[in-house]
Each structure stands twice: as structure tokens, then as C-alpha cells.
């Protein structure tokens, strides 16, 4: 058989030594607990491992009831935003070596959305806000071929097309923590995506929606969203651009 084998146990990570990392996870089981509790886990890890790997190791080897969302494992699906050492990040994009491993690593659910179980929160309110900004192209023309758009026009909204709706931004926003009615940065980012798209004709509507007590004016430029965004979107910048567009009355 070994003749048929591509012996590909890769050496890249193997040369890196392992060590024991301590994760302190804020657990909550709605069927048992009245309130969340912190629980410690020791895991054997390598520096190049991700927090997601650590969570998997715990789930697969120590405690199968640990619950979290994940899918792609490389930062493109937006499933696993959580608070790691006090900051919102994607577990699959946070390498152990980038954290201070001499101290325990604190992992807890994102803030501001209803906690369901362990690291899982109810995302519905988040998506409701997203839907409320009419996040889709509104265009009346019916071209036979593609609508034309110059590279410059395309570049205008490139940054905000990267959003993966992970909620890291919205759940890092101090305003959102206390006022859940606030649309939140993610919704504004997705409105920005269309407001500044040269093909779109609905920006008036969106600007109107966001010109609201719970809209762009709620943002206090705390930049937590920008710092948290795993896609590197300049969220606060985008919000500032939408504010300016509301003032102008057009994109």
C-alpha cells in the first residue's frame, strides 16, 4: 500500500514544539445552568494552531458538550466570531502564537446578542438589521448584457463587499451592547456596499432608512468595529461616508 501513498504527513507544523495552553471558557447550558460559568481546560497545542483547533480538541477529546459554531475554518464564512481575551475575533483566524500563552486564554460568546448556549448566540436580530437596510441591488434598467462599471467605480465600494456577516463588529460596538435597536455597523457596511455602487438606484431609500435615531447617528466613532473586523474592512470609515452621504442627500 505504501507504494500507493503520497506520504504527505507535512513537516511544516511538526517541527514546532507543543505546549499546554489553558483556555477558560464561559459556558452556559440553558437546560442546566441559571447563569454562565467559567470553566478551565488544558490543551496540548502548537503555536500555529488556531483557537478553533483548541476548541475542537476540547470538544473531541475532553468535553463533547462544548458548543460553538464553525464551518470553513479559514475566516471566510463568518460562523465563529467570539470574544477571545476580551476582544472579538474569529476563532479560526486567531493563532495561539499571537496570544500571550503564559496566561490563560479567555473565550466567551460575543456580546449584545441573546446567549443561547456556550459560545452560541442568537443571530436573528443581527440578520434582521441587515435585511432592514435593503441590502440588494436596486436597478430598473434591463440590460441585455452586463451593466457597465469602470474599475474606478468598482473600487469605490470594494472594501465593503468583503463583509462575511460575522457580527464581530456589531457585537463589539458599545452602543449596540446597551441599545440593541441600533442597526449596528454590519448593517451600515452592507448599506454602504450598495449606496456607493454606481449601478444602484436605491441609495435614497437606504440613506433615508439610516437617517434615523437608530441609524448612522447612533455611532459614536469608537472604532471597536474596525478593530474587530476580521476582513479588515474600514468600518468606521464606511459609516463616516454614509453619514456624509446622508448630509449631502446623495451618495
Amino acid at each position, binding site marked *: 500500500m505504501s507504494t500507493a501513498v503520497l506520504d504527505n504527513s507535512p513537516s511544516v507544523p511538526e517541527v514546532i514544539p507543543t505546549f499546554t495552553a489553558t483556555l477558560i471558557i464561559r459556558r452556559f447550558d440553558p437546560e442546566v445552568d441559571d447563569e454562565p460559568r467559567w470553566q478551565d481546560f488544558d490543551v496540548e497545542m502548537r503555536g500555529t494552531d488556531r483557537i478553533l483547533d483548541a476548541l475542537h480538541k476540547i470538544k473531541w477529546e475532553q468535553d463533547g458538550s462544548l458548543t460553538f459554531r464553525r464551518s470553513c475554518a479559514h475566516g471566510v464564512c463568518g460562523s465563529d466570531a467570539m470574544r477571545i481575551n476580551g476582544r472579538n475575533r474569529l476563532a479560526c483566524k486567531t493563532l495561539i502564537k499571537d496570544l500571550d500563552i503564559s496566561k490563560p486564554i479567555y473565550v466567551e460568546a460575543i456580546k*449584545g446578542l441573546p446567549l443561547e448556549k456556550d459560545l452560541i448566540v442568537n443571530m436573528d436580530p443581527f440578520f434582521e438589521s441587515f435585511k432592514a437596510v435593503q441590502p440588494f441591488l436596486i436597478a430598473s434598467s434591463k440590460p441585455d448584457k452586463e451593466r457597465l462599471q469602470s474599475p474606478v467605480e468598482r473600487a469605490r465600494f470594494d472594501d465593503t463587499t468583503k463583509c462575511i456577516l460575522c457580527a464581530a463588529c456589531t457585537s463589539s460596538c458599545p452602543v449596540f451592547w446597551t441599545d*440593541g435597536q441600533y442597526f449596528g455597523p454590519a448593517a451600515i457596511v452592507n448599506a454602504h456596499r450598495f449606496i456607493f455602487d454606481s449601478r444602484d438606484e436605491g441609495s435614497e431609500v437606504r440613506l433615508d432608512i439610516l437617517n434615523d435615531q437608530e441609524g448612522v447617528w447612533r455611532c459614536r466613532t469608537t472604532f471597536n468595529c474596525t478593530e474587530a473586523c476580521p476582513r479588515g474592512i474600514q468600518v468606521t470609515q464606511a459609516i463616516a461616508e454614509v453619514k456624509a452621504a446622508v448630509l449631502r442627500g446623495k451618495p
Partner: protein
Amino acid sequence: MSATIETPRAPQPVRRQRRFNFEKWGWIYMRASGVVLVVLIFGHLFVNLFAGEGVKAIDFAFVGGKLSQPFWQIWDTLLLWLALIHGANGMRTIVNDYASNRLLRVIFKGALIASAVVLLVLGTLVIYTFDPCPAGSPANLLPSFCPAG
């Protein structure tokens, strides 16, 4: 601010949008007044606390001296109005942020508006009805330009 409020999305009545967009103008006002306030407040502080003797120099005579000049009357009126409305509007935002309960919001905002209105009226009246040389006061308390009583 670090309070972990995990279910803030308490259902709230949907507010209809008003013709006059208060939020937008409030936002603009905070910025416009802020810029002017920098000048007004630092001027005010400089004259009152820094120049000359500092706080120690402040007494009725000092204030009376200032408020009898139209320049300082206008300065202080502007300062009063811009700062108080700026502050009250800022407080309103904060109430919106933290008072999740509708009743609380109403109470806090009512108190804010009431105190702001009362103080604006009071302050303005004081500035313009002010008599730097009230009759019957000991002369040593009054500004030097008062006719010796």
C-alpha cells in the same frame, strides 16, 4: 460601560420618522457648537482662571465688571446657550443608550429638558437684568466703577 447586557433587543415600539430629523440636526449641532465652544470656553477659562490672579480674583466685583460690558454679555450668553444645549443633547444620547426602559427614558429626558429650559431662562435673565451696582450693598464688594454708595 462594561456591563454585560446580553439581551438589549427588548422589543420597543417602532418610532415613526418625523419630518424634521432631530437626530441629524442634533448630530450637526454637536459638532458646530463644539467648535465654537472651544473658543468660548477656553477664552472664558483663560480670563477667569489663568490670567491675573486666577480663581482667587473671582468675586462679585470681578463678575460685575465683566457682565457690565456688552462684549462679555454676548460671550457669556453664547456660552450659556451653546454649552447647555450641547450638554443636554449629549445627555439625551446617553439616556438613549442606557435607559432601556421606556418610562425611564421619558422621565430622564423630561428632567433634562426641564432643567435645561429653566437654566437657560434663568441664566439669560441674570446676564441681561444684572445690576453691577445694586443699591445698598457694601461698596467694597462692588466693582470699582460703581458710584460710591
